[in-house]
Every structure is written in C-alpha cells, then in structure tokens.
C-alpha cells in the first residue's frame, strides 16, 4: 500500500437532492423583508427598518405567536441556564476563572460556585484564592453547567456537582453549537466502550469510561494512568465519526453517534475521514435513524 494518497479535485456532490425535506421552510437572507405588518414582535436575527421587519442573518424564519425570529445556520454559542458546557480556562483572576466556551464573551466560573476538592463545604477564604491555580490553571478543560446569563450575553458557570469539574484524558472535538441536540442528559456512556460529553456550546469531550463512578475528589485529581490501546482506538473512531456527522450536518446525540460508529466498523479508523466513506456511513446512519423514527 502506498504511504501517501493523492486526490484530484472533483466536483462537489449536492447531497440534499435525495432528501426532499425542509423545503417548505421560509428561508431568508440579510436585508430581506419578512413582513410589513406592524403587529409582530421583533426577535433575534431581525431588525426594524422603517415600518418593516427585516432579517439580519441568513436562515429559517421561526414564528411563535407574535414573535418572529430568524435562526442562523451557525452562530457562536448563546448561553441558556441549565446548559451543559465544556470549556477551557483562559485566565485565573481574583475570585474567578475566565473560561473560553465558544460564546461571544468569555464565561466566568466563580470560586464560590465550585466544589472544593474533597467536597468540603465552607466559605472561601483568602487561602483558597491563593490556591486557585492549584485547582484549575490556564489551559485546563472543564465541564460545567450554566448558572446565569448576564445582560451582555456573558455566561456564569457552576460545577457544584460531582458530574462536573476538571477533565482528564480524552479528546476534544469542536463543532457548531447548532449541531448538538438538546436532551435530558448530555453525559453518555456509550456501549462501544467510551463516554462522551456533548456540550451545548459545541465542544464535545470523548474520554474512556471511568472504572468506578467518581471518588470524592470532586473531579480535580486527574487520572494519569495510560489509556489502553483498545480504548484509544474506540475514542479515535468516535472522533472521526463525529467529524463525519458534522461534515454532513447531522444532529449529534447519543443514538446518531452510536449508529455512525456501528456503520463505520467495516472501515479503518483513518479511512473514515475520506469524503466517500463519510458520505456512505452517514447515509447509513440517516437511514437507520429514519427507521427508528418509524
């Protein structure tokens, strides 16, 4: 087998022709007049231009009673209370960490809104402030829940549960937030031998399923034992599957990822990223999902 593979440019295939859904939607582009009726309320993605409601982004119009919004195809993450996010620490400040969460401003994790290592419950003292960098330092990845959203769109996070906290060994995949399906739970232990955290902000964390569910460390001690080869292979395959699903714009949730993983099993892990293989396995996934819906 050759060590290198060369490809010549080929015309792009339009995948959507086979699927005739979604054509009944009202699609708009920036500057389009949505309605001249003044009885409507202006939602996201729209603005008032002399007595008319005008779209400001490209996407589908959504109407809820009198409210008209335009949902853009992809945007940065807009926080909502209760969302699960995965983020990266960018800065350690006086009483807070700044966390990059793909939102339009960095999110805040207050020292007082996290569990201390050991699960101790008390007021945070000056010593705790000094030890902040020992808990989380710049570059660390965390999973957290959105506690509050400020008026300027910035988000405040909390990690007051053993589910949340610092992330150890695993793989981060960044996708568009609009591709992550909202669900009851965003922590999944997949039967294929790995776990995923599907952050609402489009950050997806794939990691080996932990042996025993959490010691009392509160998730701040990282397990640095080498991950067995088999687990690493499963994780790599899942990563490539997620990238394939994203390339074909399929929503991400536990079932779609699992079906895609199963569809990819006949192929080598590195081959999953080839465009034709991507198309094949995602098409199979789509069909299985449609069958599931009935």
């Amino acid at each position, binding site marked *: 087998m050759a060590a290198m593979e060369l490809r010549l440019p080929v015309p792009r295939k*339009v*995948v*959507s022709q086979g*699927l*005739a*859904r*979604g*054509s009944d*939607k009202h*699609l708009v*582009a*920036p*500057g*389009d007049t949505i309605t001249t009726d003044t009885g409507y309320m202006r939602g996201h*993605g729209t*603005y008032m*231009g002399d007595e008319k409601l*005008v779209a*400001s*982004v*490209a*996407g*589908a119009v959504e109407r809820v009673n009198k409210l008209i919004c335009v949902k*853009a*195809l*992809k*945007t*940065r993450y807009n926080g909502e209370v209760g969302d699960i996010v995965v983020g990266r620490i*960018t800065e350690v400040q006086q009483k807070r960490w*700044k966390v*990059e969460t793909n939102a*339009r*401003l*960095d999110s805040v994790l207050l020292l007082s809104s996290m569990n201390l290592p050991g699960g101790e419950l008390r007021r945070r003292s000056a010593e705790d402030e000094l030890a902040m960098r020992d808990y989380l330092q710049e570059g660390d990845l965390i999973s957290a829940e959105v506690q509050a959203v400020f008026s*300027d*769109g910035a988000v405040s996070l909390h990690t007051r549960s053993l589910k949340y906290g610092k992330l150890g060994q695993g793989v981060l995949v960044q996708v568009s937030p609009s591709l992550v399906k909202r669900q009851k739970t965003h922590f999944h232990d997949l039967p294929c031998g790995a776990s995923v955290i599907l952050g609402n902000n489009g950050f997806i964390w794939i990691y080996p399923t932990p042996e025993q569910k959490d010691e009392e460390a509160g998730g701040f001690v990282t397990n640095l034992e080498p991950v067995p080869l088999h687990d690493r292979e499963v994780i790599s395959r899942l990563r490539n599957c997620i990238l394939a699903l*994203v*390339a*074909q*714009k*399929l*929503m991400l949730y536990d079932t779609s990822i699992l079906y895609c993983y199963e569809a990819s099993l006949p192929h080598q892990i590195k081959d999953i990223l080839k465009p034709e293989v991507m198309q094949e396995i995602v098409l199979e996934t789509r069909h299985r999902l449609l069958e599931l819906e009935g």
Partner: protein
Amino acid sequence: MAGLELLSDEGYRVDGRRAGELRKVRARMGVFAQADGSAYIEQGNTKVLAVVYGPHEMRGSRSKALHDRALVNCQYSMATFSTGERKRRPHGDRKSSEMTLHLKQTFEAAILTQLYPRSQIDIYVQVLQADGGNYCASVNAATLATIDAGIPMRDYVCASSAGFIEDTPLADLNYVEEAAGGPQVALALLPKSDQIALLEMNSRLHEDHLDQVIEAAIKACKDIYTVLDQVVREHVHEVTTLLGE
C-alpha cells in the same frame, strides 16, 4: 496607453465584455471548518479568500474594547504569488493598510455591532490572485463570510469598481483597464436600501461624468448582489435540507 485599445469601436473591451458587463463570478461559502465563517470568491481572474472569527472576547489589547458595540478588526493581505511581480510583504505595507482601513469602515457600516458589546469581530481577507478590483472582491468575499458566520448585518455589502474610458463608463475593471491610469471609482453599496458604505475615487474625472460613473458602479453592485444572493440562498437551502429537523 501605447496603442492598447481599451474599448473597440464595436463597444467591446479588452477581455471581450460590453461596457456594463461584469466578469464571471463564482463563489462558495463555508470553505473552512475551523473559522466561524469563511468564503471564497472569483471575479474573473481575481481570487479572494475571506475568513471571519467572532464575535469573541477581546484578544490582544483589552483596552480597545468598546462598551456599547463590537470592534471590527480587519486584515487585508495579498499572497506573495498574487501579482505578476512577486510581492515581498503580504501585508502591513501602505497599500494593504489603507485597504484594511477601508474594509473596516465598510463593515462597521453594515454589521449590527451594537448587539455585541465588548466583543471583537475579526475579518481576514487574502487575495490569492490579483486581476483588478481587489477591494471589491474582498468586500464581496467578506460579506459572504460574515453571513456564513451568522453575524447580523443590516444588508449585504456589494462592491464594484467603475471607470471612465473614451467617454463611456465601464463597470468592474480588470487589471489592464486599471493599469491604464484612467479615473476609477470603487463603490460599496447596501443594495436593498441603496445606501453607500464606501466610495473612493482615484485620479481625475470631470464633474459632469461623475453621475454616470457612479450610476454604472451602482448597477454593477446590484448585479453582484443578485449573484451573491443566489449563492447564499443555495447554501442556506442545502444546509437546512441536510439538517432537516
């Protein structure tokens, strides 16, 4: 002009176009996965890539943050291989800095920056092949990239150049026509509301002819709009069909 006939007696230009005709426009949105928005455009032989990041937290100097709106940060660069003679600096020279400033002005007029206080929006434009109308192609590419990033805009921004040769206004000049040294107008337009985002003119033009030239440029911008709009709609349709919720 050394014998080069820019407009023949039959009304054809050097590349065989009519006076008001555009060059072939081909465009694609979403060419990069990593960026928030990206686009590629070809206008004749002028080829431009644009990428948009943001709105995101201020990077670099935080003191530049505006408390009531987003900062638009642009960078215009030309690939070293984009011109006939190899360029030494891809960006940062006088011409590129001026272009950067123009792009910034244009997009501050179009993007609804007040929705994102204390944030920053980065627009990076790179010319891969320069064959006249670099500013215009950059604006058009950046518009598509901004729309791809889902950043709210008042309207599209479409730009086109126009010149005035042998008493005829010519739309969308190519390199040969630009190099001839005649008057040249670059115009960025918000086509739906007919507002001008930027207007720039090089060399001298008689006042009586100005209206005609601007008219030609506006017409060209609207033609560009038709093409860009079609690209956007096809893209939106394709993606929504795939998402098919």
